């Protein structure tokens, strides 16, 4: 029994712990065992927090024994290494922060602590969340648990891989242009990017502030709903965070999608998509019809401008967000005779190639004389894309699309061509630009056994609707969760 505990869902473990069938310590040990066993093959973690996790688990057991177990008591989670964790080094997968130990917790980390969660380790990612494959990490590539020659997707690849490989029960990621949904799709797990402002960003190392959003990975939609309930809600430390009350997402999972109008945007079924991906998506849509949902063809006409707008807005914000890594107060410092040279050497040594590329791009688009042509235009495109979705949601309740045009690609395959890499996010980026919630769920496998992801997009704050739709599909059993082959 004990050896299988790490394979449980959060809902199962929650019940088992409540019934005292096993202890939080046993559950955490099972995850740590699995990490010992499989992480050398997939490198999902930058830092494994065995000692802290066992302490947290022991504390969880005491609370369980005392009968005051909070929502996630004793549940082992992987935390993307972008979250500030008090006393535990937080690298953002960068040499720049290799030895940075934050003196504070991110708001969501504090919430999870309060909810009794166990932090099993800090998960690998693309450096500063810039990438779609988790290949841009100063701590090595994370490999896809379904095929270690393939990428796990990015930037939250470590979190997705850790969940897929049963190294934990759930995980935290962040999503700026698809960084939760793409790795969820590539690794065959559920991942949700909530509405912008639904979850506090305080203590989440910023990449692109107006796009970044916190979200969970889980083995099931139900588990994602359970995690989101704890994560979401107002935070006085984040002025952009919504004060809306947080619903009980789990209770929205009725399995009933009868009458739900599912919009299918014609712009998302284009040449270049792998036929197996399209087939899997079409099959999933057919399942929804069988469940009583109605399919509606919709149009999102400005989709083709999304990637360009994204790389302007995101890199502009990133160029300012990453200016603080100057070697003066914390993090890497490469000494020099004068301050200017100290900056140059520190930043040259501390940042990887993709981060430098995006800082330069962002600096350029904000430069005097270019601001109107790029940044301002990017923001205008953003408004148009938001308008596309507003109009589409007049005709449907949920929009269904593929998460990515392909399944997980080979490690190294796109590293030489950043533009090809950027296209991996073609179906996810618009959702960030519009600030909408998006859920990624497995909807099939290709011939090589690689997972295919279905994206369900909702209106602002309609997390309940997309979770209900995702859960209803999951209940059909059309796609069996396939254990990673490791």
């Amino acid at each position, binding site marked *: 029994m004990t050896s299988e505990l790490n394979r449980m869902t959060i809902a199962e473990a929650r019940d088992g712990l409540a019934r005292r069938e096993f202890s939080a310590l046993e559950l955490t040990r099972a995850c740590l065992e699995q990490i010992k066993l499989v992480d050398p093959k997939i490198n999902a973690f930058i830092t494994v927090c065995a000692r802290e996790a066992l302490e947290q688990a022991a504390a969880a057991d005491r609370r369980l024994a005392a009968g005051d177990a909070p929502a996630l008591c004793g549940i082992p989670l992987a935390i993307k290494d972008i979250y500030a964790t008090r006393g535990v080094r937080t690298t953002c997968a960068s040499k720049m922060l290799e030895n940075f130990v*934050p003196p504070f917790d991110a708001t969501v980390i504090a919430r999870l602590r309060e909810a009794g969660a166990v932090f099993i380790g800090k998960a690998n990612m693309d450096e500063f969340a810039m990438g779609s494959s988790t290949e841009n990490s100063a701590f090595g590539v994370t490999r896809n648990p379904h095929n270690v020659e393939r990428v796990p997707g990015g930037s939250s690849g470590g979190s997705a891989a850790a969940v897929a490989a049963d190294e934990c029960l759930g995980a935290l990621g962040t999503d700026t242009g698809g960084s939760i949904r793409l790795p969820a799709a590539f690794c065959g797990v559920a991942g949700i990017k909530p509405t912008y402002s639904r979850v506090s960003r305080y203590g989440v190392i910023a990449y692109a502030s107006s796009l970044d959003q916190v979200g969970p990975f889980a083995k099931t939609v139900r588990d994602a709903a359970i995690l989101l309930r704890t994560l979401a809600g107002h935070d006085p430390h984040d002025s952009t965070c919504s004060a809306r009350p947080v619903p009980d997402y789990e209770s929205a999972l009725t399995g009933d999608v009868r009458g739900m109008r599912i919009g299918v945007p014609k712009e998302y079924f284009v040449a270049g998509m792998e036929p197996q991906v399209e087939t899997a998506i079409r099959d999933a849509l057919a399942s929804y019809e069988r469940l009583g949902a109605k399919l509606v063809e919709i149009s999102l006409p400005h989709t083709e401008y999304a990637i360009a707008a994204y790389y302007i807005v995101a890199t502009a914000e990133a160029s300012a967000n990453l200016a603080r890594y100057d070697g003066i107060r914390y993090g890497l410092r490469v000494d020099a005779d004068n*301050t200017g040279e100290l900056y140059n050497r520190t930043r040259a040594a501390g940042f990887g190639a993709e981060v430098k590329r995006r800082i330069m791009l962002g600096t350029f688009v904000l430069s005097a004389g270019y601001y109107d042509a790029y940044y301002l235009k990017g923001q205008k495109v953003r408004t148009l894309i938001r308008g596309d979705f507003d109009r589409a949601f007049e005709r449907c309740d949920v929009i269904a699309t593929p998460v990515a045009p392909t399944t997980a690609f080979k490690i190294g395959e796109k590293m030489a061509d950043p533009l090809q890499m950027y296209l991996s996010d073609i179906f996810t980026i618009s959702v960030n630009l519009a600030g909408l919630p998006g859920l990624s769920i497995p909807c099939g496998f290709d011939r090589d056994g690689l997972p295919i992801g279905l994206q369900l997009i909702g209106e602002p704050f309609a997390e309940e609707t997309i979770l209900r739709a995702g859960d209803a599909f999951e209940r059909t059993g059309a796609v069996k969760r396939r254990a990673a082959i490791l």
Partner: protein
Amino acid sequence: MPDNAYEAIIGLEVHTHLMTRSKLFCGCSAGFGAGPNENVCPVCMGMPGVLPVLNRHAVELAIRTGLAAHCEIAPESIFARKSYFYPDLPKGYQISQYELPLCKGGYIELPAQSEGTEARRIRLTRIHMEEDAGKNIHESGASLVDFNRSGVPLVEIVSEPDIRSAEEAGAYLRELRSILRYIEASDGKMEEGGLRCDVNVSVRKRGASEFGVKTEIKNLNSFRFVEKAIEHEVARQIDILESGGRVAQETHLWDPVREMTRPMRSKEFANDYRYFPEPDLPPLRVTPDVVEAIKTSMPELPADQRARFVRDLGLTAYEAAVLTQDRDLAAYFETMLATGLKNHRTAANWVMTEVLRAINETARPLADAAPLAIESGELLKLVETGAISLNAAKTAFAAMCKSGKGADATVAELGLAQVSDESAIAAACDKVIAAEAAKVAEYRGGRDKLFGFFVGQVMKAMGGKGNPRVVNEILKRKLTA
């Protein structure tokens, strides 16, 4: 103006700290005097992942400043990131306001600068909010940074190029400081970096309609330096133009030791700040009710008080201007009047001479340098009733400054009370008339000028305490009798 054929065109950008308890975007103390890096937290240290939360009180003080300067308060303004690298700037950008500032337009009215001159209005372009940076310290070969000041709220008050001389720039700064103190937005203390100034200067031939090329002088931190720097820069520009040269559009730094400006190296200012809207802060919305509530809580402003002093108390514009340079000084004057003084101008001049002298001589704040205003008032009342002479009052005041004792006690202690008792004065007069029979005869023979001599003799006989008015009266009666 060194050369009267030219006029100077001057605009000022004044940065001043707002007197809030906590910083602009975090809960750290905004106070001074703490040890290095004691008032810091992850937010004002620019740690990874932190976010700003706007301090409501700072916004209120900025709105007060805008209302006091007759600005339009924007119902929606936005914060922007101003990017540049400097060790004292923890995030690599300063959160400021750029395109949509909190306050637009407005003006500062400069009071009369000397007897007989008129008030002048200097228009404002805008007032916006921003955060301060830390402080670099160079010590024993090391460069250190103190982040206590990082994130302290500032307003930047930008004037139109309406100022025409160094003296006027000084007057503008003094009036601005006075306003800021009246509304308790800022203490305007330059020594703590509480008030800093950048100056834009150009010159043009008098009567020309186009502006000349301007230079910017950065980071002046005393009123005297502002005036000196402008004088120097105006003279320098006129020299260049007179010798057929062209003024270069440059940024200069003021060298307070050599008392001259020098151009900054291009590297020091060639910044493209890459402003863009701060995504971590929603637009700042200010409703009309909030503005209205702040308006009703505003104290009387220096300009209004000046107008009232002239209108209701009969002071000259200049007297009113001097008194309202400082809120405490004006309050001192008004408290003196509250004791029931009838001669307002005497009281005003008392404050302008005796009280200001006490402040200047001791270099201490009013409350420490001078006796309580109510005691100053009582002292002048003794002059009004004739109990003491004005000179005796000055003597008493000097003693009160040191002892802190009251007017009556001091006058009694120093024996300064005048003798107004007619019989005592008459007796003294009789004695002098009897002793100076020859001179009395001369006087009565027509030498009127001798009257002063008799007054002097009577006063001498009375130890200087005779009430001069009564002495004059009785003496005249007795001499002509």
